[in-house]
């Protein structure tokens, strides 16, 4: 399989574990993990396959997600 063009970065300091990103992703590129951040919220994780629609980025209530095209800066 070809390498993904995009990557999804989650700011663990901001995430509150609502998982709306997992709900909205049309290609199941995100899933719920058992890892928790320092405040005890369970975190989502990127499992690969992002096609760059950026719906997770836009729905995130905590502004914790950034979808990046690989090779690009911020």
């Amino acid at each position, binding site marked *: 399989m070809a390498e993904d063009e995009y990557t999804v970065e989650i700011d663990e*300091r*901001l995430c*509150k*574990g*609502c*998982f*709306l990103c997992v*709900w909205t992703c049309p290609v199941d590129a995100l899933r719920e993990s058992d890892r928790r951040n320092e405040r005890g*919220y369970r975190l989502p994780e990127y499992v690969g396959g992002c096609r760059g629609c950026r*719906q997770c980025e*836009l*729905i*995130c*209530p*905590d*502004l914790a997600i950034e979808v990046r095209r690989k090779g690009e800066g*911020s």
Partner: protein
Amino acid sequence: MNWRDLIRWERMPHILCPGCGNGTILNVLVRALAEKFEAGELDPDRTVLVSGIGCSSRLPGYVRLDSLHTTHGRPLAFATGLKLANPDLEIIVLTGDGDAAAIGGNHLIHAARRNLDVTVICSNNLIYGMTGGQVSPTTPEGAKSTTTPYGNPEPPFDLCELVMGAGAPHVERWTTAHPQQLKRAIHRALERDGFSFIDVLSQCPTNYGRRNDLKSPREMLEWLRENTSTKDEPGKIRIGILRDEERKPFHERVHELIEEVSGDEEGG
């Protein structure tokens, strides 16, 4: 301008609950504003956020723009003064269903009637979230809240119909399950002169969902997605562009009148 430059990161993470719809509204708003600033259509030094009281009204505190956090129900009253004194300001009012439709109901209809040139983004989460989940003017009939434990006996206000009835020229309704459409709606509202009203149906999992069998943010968004439609479907809430017209804004008429009257005095 990158949207990241518009957030006061030193105040983040914000106080909103996990999965709060106000967070999505903040997210969409700063991206829409950053695009407008980047395109040179708006000036960050001439853009002001005005809010009242409630969870939605906390949002300006996280945005690196001039802002007014005013008294309960009165953001439109403050915005009226701002716009008349400084007509070149772009004013965005962030309010909620309790703030805009209950205690501020009069300000809302009269701002719409006068066609005050502001963009109103009303986070309509169907409940008083901040104070613990009391019934609001938009709580659906039969829904449970701390003050209607047996179900709400009152019919709710349709805020879009209300402001259209009062004369608002640009009215749209979206939900937090439609962030992309909401962003485009904010773009349109910022471009229009006159009173632009966006009713954003939003989720309060903590105080609305918990009492109405919609415990998780996800369930609430599914409810919003399933119970709304861009067509007139029976039993569904109509979303989309409900009215898009033009009418001369209030501040233009007032300033024309001032010019006319003071001209007369000088001439006479």
